[in-house]
């Protein structure tokens, strides 16, 4: 392979990216060396198994990916603003919408939520860490390396361009001969390992690591939503793993699972993809529901209305999520009976979701509503998600879907649910739990600027797209003619997109500004919270709880505070040494080997993939013979921590 085939050449935008990547890398290396931070980086972060630090790293990675996916979105909007624009050619546009979709779902939404779950869930259930801390680090690093592998495609070898759904035969070797699609397959495969491990890890954590006094029906609702999400992950992700593996075999080893030639079955890919893909959208929405529930309850100063109904509705949603996948291709010609069945199951999801909407409204009813930034995001979610939801019901009506399918009506719908659901929740959760992570709050004034600009921009960007869809504009076209009459709405959409971009930049500035100027927290309970994470001191000690808390009902911390108000004195118990897991460098090294193996497979360099896989195996062996059983935090150290708070 020649060097100019290895590196992507010929496009000024890519050269710009090359330069900025190089500069960022050099800058980072320089800064780490200049401030003598290499050792700190290794011992405090790269080898950590602390769920709070892993959560923070997940979130940082997710924000970076949000930036990358957002730049992709801006480029698309720039190209579509006016008819017959020549800013991007068809191939470049195809690559950009492919990476935009893949990155936003797999490498932004999921890690952002998993990051928040990592930080919050163990604290909410009174645990000192997750069930498998080492595995948790493997989860993060495989996700991170998978994301990096996917991301380097645009400067080395070329990006995938068959859409985030990668429908065959288009994504097959005959019609997509480049290495781009291999990046998609291997990047997702490696990151998928991490997600599956997270699913197992948190399922066990929530079931087995709760403080003994916390019954299932006393768990905070966010923990419940995480538990149900983990169950979905465990059932859905193996399907993706298998589907990706089969397509990898097709492309690298000449098998014929999904090919046109020799009796392959391209439709099978669409089915497998969506058997994973539909539960996937609930994987990214259920934790969001959980967060909104916590935040609305906290800032309405009321316990969640219909807690049990909220739990059961999530269970029903999770069950239905596996019974609706065909609605992604009603137009495949499966016949009236099949389409009717999947129309009805899809519509049914609206029932438990509607129950949740009304329960949120009645949590607010008779409350004392404080409009903090986190609360604003949670409130804006309700009307926006309802718009996304009712258009979802419209799409569920198969006979009408034949006209919506593959159009901007669909694009508008899924952005309405994913942005006002998942992205609003990420921002709300970030503002809400930020003091738990960084020991200071995000600035409220800047937060509100972000909120208003982003929400206005979001609606301006995506509401017109419903009409574009009804006007016949298909998704994934890289341009359109002046005669199509789609320009005015596209201009509006682009203006909205720009506003969203500005909102994001203010958020980033807010992170910097708050780091510099926000007062540090003195208590661990900045919002007058209701669940156990707020009972931990600021900063949260690495062992989380010096004493395991006593849970007497839902909203456990609120009950404790009520008791203290009524004059109950907290009893002083002596500290005992706490057993904690040791940090380990194995996960990050193992994941680097995964990266090497994946990179080798992308280019079919067998020596490299074998080398990488040997490395993976070797690190596993090393781990198997690791007799480190962790360490005890001494009573003196605990006393030292608890004294400062």
């Amino acid at each position, binding site marked *: 392979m020649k060097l100019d085939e290895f590196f992507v050449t010929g496009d000024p935008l890519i050269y710009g990216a090359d330069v900025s990547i190089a500069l960022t890398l050099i800058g980072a290396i320089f800064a780490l060396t200049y401030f003598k931070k290499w050792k700190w980086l290794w011992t405090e972060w790269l080898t950590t198994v602390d769920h709070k630090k892993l959560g923070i790293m997940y979130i940082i990675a997710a924000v970076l990916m949000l930036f990358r996916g957002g730049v992709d979105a801006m480029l698309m909007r720039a190209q579509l603003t006016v008819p017959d624009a020549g800013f991007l050619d068809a191939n470049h546009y*195809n690559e950009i919408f492919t990476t935009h979709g893949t990155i936003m779902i797999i490498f932004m939404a999921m890690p952002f939520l998993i990051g928040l779950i990592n930080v919050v869930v163990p604290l909410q259930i009174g645990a000192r860490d997750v069930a498998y801390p080492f595995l948790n680090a493997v989860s993060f690093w495989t996700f991170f390396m998978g994301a990096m592998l996917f991301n380097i495609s645009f400067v080395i070898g070329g990006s995938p361009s068959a859409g985030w759904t990668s429908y065959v035969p288009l994504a097959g070797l005959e019609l997509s001969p480049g290495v781009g699609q291999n990046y998609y397959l291997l990047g997702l495969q490696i990151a998928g390992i991490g997600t599956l491990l997270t699913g197992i890890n948190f399922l066990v954590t929530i079931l087995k690591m709760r403080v003994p006094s916390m019954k299932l029906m006393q768990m905070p609702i966010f923990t419940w939503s995480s538990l149900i999400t983990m169950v979905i992950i465990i059932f859905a992700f193996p399907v993706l793993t298998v589907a990706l593996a089969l397509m990898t075999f097709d492309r690298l080893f000449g098998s014929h699972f999904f090919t046109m030639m020799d009796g392959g079955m391209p439709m099978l890919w669409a089915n497998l993809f969506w058997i994973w893909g539909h539960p996937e959208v609930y994987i990214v929405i259920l934790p969001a529901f959980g967060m909104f529930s916590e935040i609305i309850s906290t800032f309405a100063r009321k316990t969640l209305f219909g807690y049990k109904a909220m739990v059961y509705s999530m269970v029903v949603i999770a069950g239905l999520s596996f019974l609706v996948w065909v609605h992604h291709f009603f137009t495949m010609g499966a016949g009236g009976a099949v389409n009717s069945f999947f*129309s009805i199951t899809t*519509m049914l999801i609206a029932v438990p979701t509607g*129950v949740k909407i009304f329960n949120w*409204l009645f949590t607010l009813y008779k409350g*004392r509503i404080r409009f903090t930034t986190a609360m604003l995001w949670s409130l804006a979610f309700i009307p926006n998600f309802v718009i996304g939801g009712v258009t979802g019901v419209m799409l569920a*009506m198969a006979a009408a879907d034949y006209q919506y399918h593959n159009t901007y009506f669909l694009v508008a719908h899924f952005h309405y649910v994913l942005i006002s659901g998942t992205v609003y929740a990420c921002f709300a959760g970030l503002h809400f739990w930020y003091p738990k992570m960084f020991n200071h709050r995000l600035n409220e004034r800047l937060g509100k600027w972000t909120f208003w600009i982003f929400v206005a921009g979001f609606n301006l960007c995506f509401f017109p797209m419903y009409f574009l869809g009804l*006007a016949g504009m298909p998704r994934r*076209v890289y341009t359109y003619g002046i005669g199509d009459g789609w320009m005015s709405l596209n201009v509006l959409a682009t203006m909205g997109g720009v506003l969203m971009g500005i909102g994001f930049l203010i958020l980033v500035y807010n992170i910097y500004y708050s780091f510099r100027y926000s007062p540090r927290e003195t208590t661990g309970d900045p919002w007058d919270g209701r669940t156990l994470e707020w009972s931990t001191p600021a900063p949260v000690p690495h062992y989380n709880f010096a004493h395991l808390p006593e849970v007497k009902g839902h909203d456990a911390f609120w009950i404790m505070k009520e008791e203290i108000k009524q004059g109950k004195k907290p009893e002083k118990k002596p500290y005992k040494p706490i057993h904690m897991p040791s940090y380990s460098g194995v996960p990050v090294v193992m994941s680097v080997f995964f990266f090497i193996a994946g990179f080798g497979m992308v280019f079919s360099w067998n020596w490299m993939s074998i080398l990488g896989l040997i490395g993976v195996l070797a690190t596993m062996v090393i781990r198997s013979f690791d007799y480190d059983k962790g360490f005890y935090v001494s009573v003196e150290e605990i006393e030292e921590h608890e004294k400062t708070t």
Partner: protein
Amino acid sequence: MKSMLALSMFFAVMVLSGCSNLTVLDPKGPVAEQQANLILFSIGFMLFIVVVVFVLFTLILVKYRERKSGPEYEPPHIEGNVFLEIVWTVIPIIILVVLAIPTVQTIFALEEAPEATSHKDPIVIHATSVDWKWVFSYPEENIETVNYLHIPEDHPILFKLASADSMGSFWIPSLGGQEYTMSGMMNELYLQADVPGEYRGRNANFTGEGFTEQTFTVTAESEEDYEEWVAEAQDAPELTQEKYNELMLKGHVEEMTFSETHLQWVDHGMDAEYATKVRNGELNEEENLKQDDDSHDSHSDMNHDDKKDSEEHSH
């Protein structure tokens, strides 16, 4: 303030001008009409739901914000209300039942030819997507066109959809919803135009580089004009296999007309491999013959279909 007003005026004008051509809600045939009716019916219910939630939401926020209730107000402890929760479970279920009935009815109705013209035999047109063009074969008229269609008005058309390579979606928004074209698969789609005119059709499912321009035009005209066009097209140059194989190569072409159809060599609804073999140069003389044999098999199947059609003709 003035600039705000000007800005909102500007937005209003933009939105309204954008709404003036909602193709999907401006149907030109019975299929699209059924779908538009279903869409409008559902929009009514959806607006009702949106209004209920928005009104409740606004009232609650205004009434219970802290600035109004004061920092001293302590909210009551309410765990839920079984009656209310049953109400907002049952009402959505009722709405969904009301929506599901016409949905299922329409799903099954669209599988048949439109009722109003059911006394007429449908015209069969094979629509085949090839990267990045559309090939239309009229087996009964024995003509083939590329990237354009002529159809008579008030006459049901039965499209038999297949693809030579990547999965496409055959869509004429003015006449009705889309359906996928797949290699080695045959889908059927009834459409009909009630209003003469020129409509735009396209591939709606992403097929790679040339996807955006994978479009065609549909001319719906009176039966007489249509017959005239058919007669004219039958005088067009004959489609040769060599010529057809050129069409199998990736790329765009102009509108074309041929007498004879490609169905004598290949039925893409049966044979998923033809286009790939052509592109790989694997169709040499010998395999051509074999291919002929293969397609004879499929051809006989198709003849069977045609026979059925012609039987229906005789009724």
